């Protein structure tokens, strides 16, 4: 598991009070975290802050899993 996806899942678990140990990279992050689109918008800001990147929305289209999101973050670093 890459550092990015590990950090991403830990951050998301902390923010949405989920059990980090139960999260898996290939899970749908909306379903795993039980979040809606408003919370997803907040998560993007948290990730930009954490990884010091900008994540344009159009690059996140179709991104559903933690692993796919981590890959997008890595491309921007």
């Amino acid at each position: 598991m890459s550092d990015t996806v590990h950090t991403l899942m830990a951050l998301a678990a902390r923010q949405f009070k989920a059990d980090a140990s139960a999260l898996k990279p290939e899970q749908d992050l909306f379903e795993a975290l039980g979040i809606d689109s408003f919370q997803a918008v907040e998560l993007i800001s948290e990730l930009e802050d954490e990884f010091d990147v900008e994540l344009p929305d159009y690059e996140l289209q179709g991104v559903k899993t933690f692993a796919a999101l981590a890959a997008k973050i890595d491309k921007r670093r």
Partner: protein
Amino acid sequence: MSESPLRFSVVDGVGELVLQREPCNEIGSAMTGALEAWLDALDDDAVHTVIIRSSVRGGFCAGADLRELHAGLVASPEAEHAASLRAFLDRIHGVMDRIDMLPVTTIGVVHGVCFGGGFELALTCDQIIAEKSARFCFPELRLGIIPGFGGIPRLRRDVGNATIRDLLLSGRSVSAKRAHALGMIAQVVGRGEGLEAAQALAAQSGKFDPTARRAAKAFIKHLPREELAREKELFVELALRPPLLAALTKFVDSTDLRPYLP
């Protein structure tokens, strides 16, 4: 009876206007009417500062009420669309311009989603305090239109054209931190800290001589009238084309639980 989209209270000269319409303070006829009534009733001699914030979890405001806009377009003959769009734009521009030019200091407290018309409402405020969760966005090109509530002309007063092109032509959202770096907002504070920061700012504003405070705002903040008028005409011209109705129909018919992500 449904709850009012707004509530307003005044304590020690500081007014607090709370947007409270679920899911995210969408601006349609109900919100517009409530804002008009609030403005009509506001005694600007009784307050020195107005804080505008949202009590709904999702954010400050998700923008125009797209479901209402869609319903209005499909329920009326095409020949009437131009007149009805223009009439709504005149109303909402009237509201936004009045808030923009209030002779009191206005502070927008933003968290979460601040998109489209919601961003445009925030931009009427003299100062925006954003919590870290806030994201700002002009998504209108996705609907085949431009922002129609005066946001672009208002933002042009504050930031460079390149910043506006970035937001407008990409439709991407930016964080509070980025918005601050771009000069669009005054302060960034932690999650849940926006109201307290606004109250502290309001208390400071209340110490100033009222005449000087009003004169300072009138001196530095003007309505970009020509651009606002041009924006209305361009909006109507674009909105009458098929892409808007097609995009609205897709939005209304969508079962996607993530409508706020592009």
